[in-house]
């Protein structure tokens, strides 16, 4: 459909220095529900937010960037590396993409301790790490996230904040190229959210790795949205860019050029199915 070089939607983004270059289409059908996903965005932002209501296709998009789903068409490039390109026949398997993925409910391995969970990303082979893994990197992340005291406990014994830190440590220990977060604060109580948001922002600044958050929470958008795309009914419906760090992003919404050419029929169908659901 689109040529290799074209980057629809965001003409203002410098293509060469692009951190995120995502163009994916997928027809989803699940339990009688049909959904057309057509997501195109490109951005040079180190901290990018994809926001929109639940059911808009955010998680599906993130999964395809991580390699947990295969688009029907399009391409995915992160930090200059092509992870998927239908026309070029490239589909890097999830295990080789070097993406850190934080699942909404963290997906901590219930049969492994905190230390073993964190060691999972660096322990090679067909066996899990010993109950007390001897990895310098694991120890360092345990200390960084103040998890040393609970290193031998199992996920079900942890508080919500400890769970999130364990999942983050597990994702970061293998030195990923980018960090993908699926509603990272939704599972936490509100008091904890603000604190962990600050922690994550500091961490990202320190590690200097690209970060992409999907969220429906305006607070996440304000904190991490150097640039943000709004996703609605399976396609990009708007874009917000932070010009001044103190500006509230909420006041600055403009439609994306590409979205007007998006498949209107697909959107209609998605709306119908949402109404039916």
């Amino acid at each position, binding site marked *: 459909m689109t040529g290799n070089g074209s980057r629809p939607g965001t003409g203002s983004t410098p293509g060469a220095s692009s951190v995120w270059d995502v163009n994916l289409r997928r027809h989803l059908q699940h339990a009688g529900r049909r959904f057309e996903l057509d997501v195109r965005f490109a951005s040079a932002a180190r901290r990018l937010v994809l926001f929109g209501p639940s059911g808009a296709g955010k998680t599906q998009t993130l999964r395809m960037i*991580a*390699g*947990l789903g295969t688009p029907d068409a399009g391409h995915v490039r992160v930090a200059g590396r092509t992870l998927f390109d239908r026309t070029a026949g490239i589909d890097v*398997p*999830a*295990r*080789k*993409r*070097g*993406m*850190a*993925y934080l*699942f909404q*409910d963290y*997906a901590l*391995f*219930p*049969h492994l301790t905190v230390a073993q969970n964190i060691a*999972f*990303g660096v322990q*090679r*082979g*067909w*066996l*899990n790490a010993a109950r007390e893994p001897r990895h310098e990197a694991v120890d360092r992340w345990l200390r960084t996230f103040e998890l040393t005291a609970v290193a031998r406990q199992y996920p079900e014994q942890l508080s919500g904040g400890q769970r999130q830190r364990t999942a983050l440590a*597990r*994702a970061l220990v*293998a030195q990923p190229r980018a960090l993908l977060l699926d509603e990272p604060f939704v599972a936490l109580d509100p008091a904890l959210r603000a604190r962990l948001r600050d922690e994550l922002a500091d961490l990202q600044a320190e590690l200097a790795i690209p970060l992409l958050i999907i969220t429906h929470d305006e607070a996440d958008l304000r904190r991490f949205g150097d640039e943000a795309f709004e996703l609605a009914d399976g396609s990009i419906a708007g874009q917000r860019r932070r010009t001044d760090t103190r500006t509230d992003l909420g006041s600055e919404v403009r439609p994306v050029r590409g979205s007007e050419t998006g498949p209107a029929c697909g959107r209609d169908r998605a709306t119908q199915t949402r109404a039916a659901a």
Partner: protein
Amino acid sequence: MEGAWIPLLLTLKVAAWATVLNMVAGIGLGLLLARLRFPGRDLLDAVLTLPMVLPPTVLGYYLLVLIGRNGPIGAWLQTQFGINLVFTWQGAVIAATVVAFPLVFKSARAAFEAVDPEFEQAARVLGRSEPAVFFRVTLPLAWRGIMAGLLLAFARASGEFGATLMVAGSLPGRTQTLSIAVYEAVQAGQDALANFLVLVASVTCVAVLLAAGWIAPGRVAGRIAGSR
């Protein structure tokens, strides 16, 4: 009474082999049917479950037809390797394995289907290969259910009577397992021997259940008694 130990040891040997064989076959086929969708999957599932519902003597007859001297598998084994399975303890292992197989297969399939795919996806994103995902995530998470199936299979295999009698017969000291020895003793009017054999069998079963509780405290035994 010394005659009781030989059938007991033979029974334990046969049941242990049957359990090991079922561990490989049951986990393999359970995983296959839990994960792959292919035409005829439901039919294959039904065929693999058949030994649980067929009368053991019918099953034994099928096995005789297959592995007997003139059966397709039996004749092939005879000409290729000079192996004869009928009226041997290995034949008893085959019979016990087939009879107990659905218990492992069903438990394994259900256990694999109960593993949340998100854990496997998390493992993949963390850079692990498919075999590593299986051995480090899928199998450990399904293990409790599989273990319960294996224990039931061991119990079923050690109590096997009908199919074993058809395939391996009742040769004292060679293929006469505990449950067959009990039957023979009663038939011969040897009440003292029958009493002793029954006692040995009962004590062995209690020991197995206790061992199960020790291997996986409160879980396997609870599962056998309870939900599944």
